[in-house]
């Protein structure tokens, strides 16, 4: 195919798309840079308090994620500015209708949860929870019965039935990630909770060593933290 438009450009509603401002979805490894220490005080009802404006202008190459993405599923096509040619007014109206109807639907939002090293998957209904903390608590309870072996040079603590996922994550290199509607693997906790529920398709609690393939620099920071 000739002339493939592969530039990743997302125009926010109301923004001019032709020049400058480009909103890029924050991918996994660049947020590893920010905060891995998901202690309870950081997680509020609206998720982590990050400046979403940082999303704009962050250079990110989508191609660094293949080891994370499910190899069976092809990566979603990059959206191009102004295509399909539907006026932003119309797009905005339909988008806001959709978000309103989703609110009132209140159907269940079951997603699969996998944890690296765990023998089987679980399923959670995201609508059962109101905050990230609730979710972590629940996940911690779900997976606390497993014993997890060594993970590279870090060494992962064995933990008892009582310990929660937060303990697991604290000081270790387990990272909660999720696959969103576009097929990208994202770090859990960046976006407001409601937005996360809308876009999350599945969860994966990933070993930090998986991240090595993504961004060595990020792994350094991981190691330096503990």
């Amino acid at each position, binding site marked *: 195919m000739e*002339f493939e438009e592969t530039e990743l450009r997302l125009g926010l509603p109301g923004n*001019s798309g032709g020049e400058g401002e480009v909103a890029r979805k924050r991918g996994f490894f660049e947020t590893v840079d920010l905060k891995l220490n998901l202690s309870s005080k950081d997680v509020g009802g609206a998720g982590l308090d990050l400046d979403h404006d940082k999303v704009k202008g962050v250079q990110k190459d989508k191609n660094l994620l293949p080891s994370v993405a499910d190899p069976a599923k092809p990566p979603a096509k990059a959206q191009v500015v102004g295509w*399909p040619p539907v*006026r932003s*007014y119309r797009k905005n109206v339909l988008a806001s209708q959709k978000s309103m109807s989703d609110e009132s639907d209140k159907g269940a939002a079951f997603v699969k949860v996998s944890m690296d090293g765990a023998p089987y998957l679980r399923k959670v209904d995201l609508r059962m929870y109101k905050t990230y903390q609730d979710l972590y608590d629940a996940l911690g309870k779900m997976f606390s019965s497993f014993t997890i072996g060594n993970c590279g040079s870090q060494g992962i603590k064995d933990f008892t039935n009582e310990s929660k996922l937060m303990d697991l994550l604290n000081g270790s290199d387990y990272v909660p990630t999720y696959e969103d509607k576009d097929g990208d693997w994202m770090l859990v906790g960046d976006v407001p909770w409601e937005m996360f529920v809308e876009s999350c398709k599945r969860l994966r609690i990933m070993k930090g060593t998986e991240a090595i393939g993504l961004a060595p620099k990020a792994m350094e920071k991981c190691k330096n933290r503990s």
Partner: protein
Amino acid sequence: MHHDRADQMSEDEDDHRSPPSDLEFTSSEARNYSTVGSGSGSGSGVPESQAPYLDQVLDNVLDNVLQFLTSRQDRNAASLVCKSWYRVEAVTRSELFIGNCYAVSPARASARFTKVRSLVLKGKPRFADFNLLPQGWGAHFSPWVASMAKAYSCLEKVHLKRMSVTDVDLENLAKSLPGFKELVLVCCEGFGTKGLAAFVSLCRQLRVLDLIESEVADDEMDWISHFPEGESCLESLIFDCVECLINFQALERLVANSPSMKRLRLNRHVSIGQLFRLLKIRGPQLTHLGTGSFSLSDLVPQGDQEPELDYASAFTACKSLVCLSGFREIVPDYLPAIYPVCANLTSLNFSYANINTEQLRPIIRHCHNLQIFWVLDSICDEGLQAVAATCKELRELRVFPIDAREDSEGPVSEVGLQAISEGCPKLQSILYFCQRMTNAAVKAMSKNCPDLVVFRLCIMERHRPDHVTGDPMDEGFGAIVKNCKKLTRLAVSGLLTDKAFSYIGKYGKLVRTLSVAFAGNSDMGLKYVLEGCPRLQKLEIRDSPFGDVALLSGLHQYYNMRFLWMSSCRLTRQGCQRVAREMPHLVVELIGSNWEDMEMDDVAEKLSMYMYRSVEMPREDAPDFVTIM
């Protein structure tokens, strides 16, 4: 259909039924032809002393005759006959149409046409609607207001499309023209409810205020309350695009005070209960209605809603209703309320209503007289089949995507298109978004719908071939230009090679507007079109591999065209500069700041060129990111 108000619904209401000529005098002056101003009006053999008197008689006769000439194409032709005709035509032209606000200056327009009552002015190129033109590019209404205030005391009507209008402009317009009657703003921006408030309070003779798909800033101003008290001559109030809360009591009062009101389109902040109240007042007179949200008010908790909403009879009084739209937050359960009016409808706009096939069926079954139908693809192919089964009078169909992304599901396909082509042979205009299409279905439409004037197919995934055969979509579009002999507007999509363009150049002799995206293989594609389509007026191209060679092959054509837009193609600065040098009356704008940093012969893959004819020097209001060659 020419004066059918439903035209206002179209997202591009250019008249595709007669040849174009936005101010053709621009091209004649541009070419410096001698038709205008050559010779004197008097015939030969008449003694000199009597000549001025005869001129006077002639002028009077002409004056009276030319009054009746309404078509601007005819007027442009008449103005080229001789000086006398030029002069008389100029003073008798009451409707001035300017297709590109930068083609001519306000001063020049008002110097020539002195008795204008109605002005139609268009600004930004259409691709601005899709965020391809940065904010602040131009198309300001301000200089026109200033000029008109001085020149046109009898100006009553202004219709703007894709112009930048400020609150101050609105206020000045109203202040300088106290007898002003009609304001129509389509796809405009730059103003807010403050400007609206000022405008409506000053325009005591206002008959029409139509705000269509415009961006209106919320200044938290209760503009509806600013309409003058007492009886109003308001005939049309369209504000469905205004995303601000409104004072319903004031609106109700206004509607009650407007016995001539025929067209009312509400915004989504008007609930269904409020709609019914308005229908009780004005239902019988309304010809055009926009229903607002068509759901219960979200300000009042569900349980406390007005208990007695009479869904069954709310619309029964609407005997004059022919055009229905709105349904901004539709609750499909309430749809049966519109049954009483379905049989009379000629125009139905469901394009903001997320309804499925089963919800559509009982409605569309009754719409035998429907000519214009706008809808979301949520109705699926089966829904289109239902349309095809009933709407035998259908002239215009637009199917919009509920999920406008490349990789979305795509509930409509070639099946729906085929059904429509078989059921609606009178179809003249179609806009169809889909994910899958076949050449066979497009060919079928070209054969079944010979009256097609506008064919716009958008296969949302770029470069997508015929999904059954895997072939490019060349043959389908080829069939359209070949078989649809009246075709003037075409938008192509899917996988297309230069062959498709060779078809367009060969058969598309009446094509005036062409939209191209992600198509073609080489310069030949564009060349075919520029060399083959003599009536081409508006050509907009994005992300296609056409370069300088192609651009330069169209020099013979560019003065005949209103504009050429090319973005993310393969042009170089050098190529654009060459065109600018060879064609002094073309303004060649390079949009995007990187053009300056580029080497002359670097291919400018991500940048835009917008080129248009003009009798003026290049504009002085261009922002930083525009370089004029």
